[in-house]
């Protein structure tokens, strides 16, 4: 009875080596997620695609992993009072429809035998685009990703970006709602942002935070910490529903998700603690570089799959995982070095 249940959930189909790999990869992804507040999860789906999992399993399990990660992160942000439940509730509708449209597209493309290829191309464009943007901002003005100092300010101290002010003044289609941080915006703006990011989530199996958070800040105008907390709260629902729908089609493999989550929950604590010690600006450039390498890796893996070269496919996989591991170790190394330096300085002052 237990065997058939575990087998049905996909637990028994994963070898111990793969479980160890997933725990390790989850740890790395968790460190990145905890430190940057975004970005780690969208390395999971391409890695699963390169491990030859079918596209619905790679996307569905990636989404279930995002769901579990979002539950853990939302619990933490709730404790900090950084979740706008009204905004989250409005966004859930648009995101739900968007996710369902994205998920239906994946199954349609899978029936045509095109899903793996098109999803990989979308990842190359997305990772490349976001990676180039983050790297450029890091080189130019040290912006991009989450500003850890900004996240510590009071909500009243935040200035609404100009573009958000323009949208709030131009699009005044009722009903209008008031949000935390003294923001008043049309429900339709929120729904449009939610649908677009939901579509992306459903199609790629990602939380969509790296698109939704900037969209909430620049299109809706909410303060950064509220955008982060509300985004995570919203992912709990959208990710849960998306995982359920993929699960109904056999797309969620607990043998993949459980070990990934086991590692990432620990990694996220380490990454989150590191933000109190390390200045994120110095590492953002590595983050941008990691995304760019991820884009190249997915491209190489896809070419390898197209021309039937296992070596190229392996090279792609090694590059994706290698880039994430290097950045995670850079965070850990910098954190420990900073702590030792601070302690050394403290000792010198005492002397």
């Amino acid at each position, binding site marked *: 009875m237990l065997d058939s249940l575990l087998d049905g959930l996909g637990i028994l189909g994963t070898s111990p080596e793969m479980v160890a790999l997933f725990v390790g990869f989850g740890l790395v992804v968790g460190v990145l997620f905890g430190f940057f507040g975004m970005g780690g999860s969208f390395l999971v789906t391409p890695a699963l695609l390169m491990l030859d999992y079918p596209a619905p399993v790679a996307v569905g399990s990636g989404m279930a992993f995002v769901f579990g990660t979002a539950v853990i992160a939302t619990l933490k942000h709730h404790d900090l009072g950084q979740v706008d439940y009204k905004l989250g509730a409005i966004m859930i509708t648009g995101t739900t429809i968007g996710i369902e449209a994205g998920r239906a597209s994946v199954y349609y493309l899978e029936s045509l035998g095109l899903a793996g290829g098109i999803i990989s191309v979308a990842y190359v464009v997305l990772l490349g685009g976001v990676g180039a943007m983050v790297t450029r901002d890091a080189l130019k003005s040290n912006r991009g990703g989450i500003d850890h100092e900004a996240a510590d300010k009071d909500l009243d101290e935040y200035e609404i970006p100009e573009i958000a002010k323009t949208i709030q003044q131009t699009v005044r289609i009722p009903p209008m709602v008031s949000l935390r941080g003294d923001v008043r915006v049309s429900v339709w703006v929120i729904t449009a942002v939610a649908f677009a990011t939901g579509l992306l989530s459903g199609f790629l199996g990602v939380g969509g935070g790296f698109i939704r958070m900037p969209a909430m800040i620049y299109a809706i105008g909410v303060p950064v910490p509220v955008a982060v907390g509300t985004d995570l709260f919203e992912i709990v629902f959208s990710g849960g529903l998306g995982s359920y729908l993929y699960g109904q089609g056999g797309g*969620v493999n607990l043998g993949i998700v459980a070990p990934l989550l086991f590692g990432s929950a620990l990694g996220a604590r380490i990454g989150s603690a590191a933000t109190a010690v390390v200045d994120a600006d110095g590492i953002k450039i590595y983050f941008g570089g990691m995304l760019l390498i991820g884009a190249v890796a997915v491209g190489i893996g896809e070419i390898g799959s197209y021309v039937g070269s296992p070596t190229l496919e392996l090279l792609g996989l090694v590059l994706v995982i290698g880039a994430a591991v290097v950045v995670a170790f850079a965070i850990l190394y910098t954190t420990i070095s900073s702590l030792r330096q601070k302690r050394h300085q403290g000792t010198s002052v005492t002397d």
Partner: protein
Amino acid sequence: MAGLEIPTWDPETALLIGTILLEAIVLYVGYGGLERLFGPYLMKFLVGGEANAR
């Protein structure tokens, strides 16, 4: 939204998603407890002496 699927009740899938939800909550609480218990010792080991990361 033609062709889109309305979620239907499926006990096995609900169990699957419920398991992930439960694992997430257990990990949040469990790792939180471990951090409080062993965090100071780990910091002492990594940094050496009385250091405070928080």
